């Protein structure tokens, strides 16, 4: 058994710094590179792409990235684990194998984790007794299921462990928890068991610290953010994991950023609910058991973690189209910038009313004044306001209404209050609103499947 492994986070979301994974494997030694590409909205986008072209449906950045990092990963024996397979892990694996061939790499094992996509199996599952109810509202699935754009089960670390046991160099999954990507190599390397709940919780919490990329190394840091050095070259986090569950969070020395109690703590509280019950498919981790120790030199030890047995359910995330929205803006300058923006808003609303359009919501925000903090924003004397961006957004089940709204914004320039600018990029176009329908499903009803594809 290895005494320790180094797991590097290479991507906090699809759209994160493109070069981060490259630096993670070139600026120092790591054993694993883990990358999270899937936000909830991503699955429905990928499903639409796959509907149009059966060869698509995965994070399209991956083949290009592989072209850069694969030679290094092969040379240094770095294994790559990512959920960027989206709704088509096999197509993603094929694309990677093509890249490997082009690079003249002779041997490569790519594993795919399948079985999370249950969109086409919903009727069968319901028939076999899966009581799928909305986790939040309690609504039954029947009235929604026919309009689902995607339906995916969140798998945990164990299918990835199976892939590693089968000798995979690269593991491509569909919907897998972000934390499972980091936990899996620890289970595999250290031989942790399914009922080692404390160890699984330790690895899960390490995964939580890594899953948003540089958010644990000084990015989006609300503490003393100006103390974060060289943010331009910010290093993404690395978890040094030990067999007893201890983890040291750090980063490559050559890169910027900061790892200390404050930066790590901020990521620990990010997007959590009850800290005693952080539920994943692998365990229920207790965030109140976490001990942190600053070892200096951008190293923070995370230890003493406890947790409990996993639940009998997987989370399922379904998405469906729920109408249209559009958003546009105009900018008003001093003098009386806010008064002008407010007047323009009134005029626009009056015109929309006259047109008898149908909206579920019309929202106005004054950027530069109260868009972020609403009623908490302090009032600024009108004379001290240099400019205000008026941002108006609408949502409706009626496409025509949203489209017409888009046509009413620009006319305000010549038919409304003065000193207005910033109408660029054309009329705001209606975009489809994708809503989510979360549910739970008994684990016994869905089986993850691991397949190896190789050169």
């Amino acid at each position, binding site marked *: 058994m290895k005494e320790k492994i180094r797991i590097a986070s290479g991507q906090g979301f699809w759209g994160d710094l493109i070069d981060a994974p490259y630096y993670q494997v070139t600026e120092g030694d790591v054993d694993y590179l883990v990358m999270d590409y899937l936000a*909830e*909205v991503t699955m429905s986008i990928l499903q639409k792409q796959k509907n149009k072209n059966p060869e698509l449906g995965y994070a399209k950045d991956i083949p290009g990235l592989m072209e850069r990092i694969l030679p290094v990963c092969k040379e240094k024996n770095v294994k790559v684990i990512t959920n960027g397979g989206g709704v088509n892990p096999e197509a993603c694996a094929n694309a990677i194998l093509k890249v490997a061939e082009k690079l003249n790499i002779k041997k490569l094992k790519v594993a795919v984790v399948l079985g999370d996509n249950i969109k086409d199996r919903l009727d069968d599952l319901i028939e076999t007794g899966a009581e799928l109810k909305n986790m*939040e509202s309690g609504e039954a699935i029947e009235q929604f299921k026919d309009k689902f754009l995607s339906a995916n089960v969140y798998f945990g670390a164990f299918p990835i462990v199976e892939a590693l046991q089968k000798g995979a160099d690269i593991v491509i999954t569909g919907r897998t928890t972000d934390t499972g990507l980091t936990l899996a190599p620890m289970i595999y390397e250290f031989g942790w068991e399914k009922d080692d709940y404390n160890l699984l919780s330790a690895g899960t919490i390490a995964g939580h610290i890594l899953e948003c990329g540089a*958010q644990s190394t000084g990015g*989006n*840091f*609300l*503490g003393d953010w100006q103390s974060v050095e060289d943010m331009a070259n910010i290093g993404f986090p690395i978890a040094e994991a030990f067999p007893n569950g201890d983890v040291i969070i750090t980063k490559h020395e050559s890169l910027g950023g900061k790892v200390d*109690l*404050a930066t790590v*703590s*901020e*990521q*620990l*509280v*990010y*997007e*959590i*609910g*009850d*800290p*005693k019950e952080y539920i994943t498919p692998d365990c229920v981790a207790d*965030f*109140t*058991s*976490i*001990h*942190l120790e600053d070892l200096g030199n951008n190293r923070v030890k995370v230890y003493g973690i406890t947790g409990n047995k996993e639940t009998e359910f997987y989370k399922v995330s379904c998405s469906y189209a*729920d109408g249209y*929205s559009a*958003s546009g803006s105009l900018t008003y300058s001093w003098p009386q910038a806010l008064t002008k923006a407010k007047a323009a808003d009134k005029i626009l609303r009056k015109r929309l009313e006259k047109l008898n359009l149908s909206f579920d*919501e019309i*929202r106005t*925000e004054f*950027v530069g004044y109260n*868009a*972020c*903090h*609403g*009623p*908490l924003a302090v009032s600024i004397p009108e004379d001290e306001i240099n400019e205000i961006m008026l*941002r108006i*957004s*609408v*949502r409706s089940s009626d496409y025509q209404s949203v489209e017409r709204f888009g046509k009413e914004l620009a006319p305000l320039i010549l038919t409304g209050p003065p000193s207005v600018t910033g109408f660029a990029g054309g009329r705001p176009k209606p975009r489809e*609103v*994708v*809503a*989510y329908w*979360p549910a739970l499903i008994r684990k016994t009803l869905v089986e993850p499947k691991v397949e190896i594809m190789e050169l």
Partner: protein
Amino acid sequence: MKIKLLDIAHGRSGDKGDAANVGIIAYDDKGYEIIKNHLSKEVVKKHFEGICLGNIDRYELPNIRALNFVLHNTLGGGGTVSLKLDAQGKTLAAALLRLELDVEN
């Protein structure tokens, strides 16, 4: 004595569907005692009047000197449904740090 939360704590916020979570972390033990004793659910609810339209859950993490608040019915539908500029509640931690706490000497 009035204490600005910004001076004794930092934090981070994000989305969980239509709910936002706001984690507040004290810089030291003394600060944690203050937020633990004074940053109640009621104080936070009042502060976010007009923003948080639902209930608030409050959790303590003394091990990292933090409190976690879950603000229900806050993000205008959440995710891609919300028309808010800050649809994910990313700036709500900063918004809570605007708070001044009334603390006995």
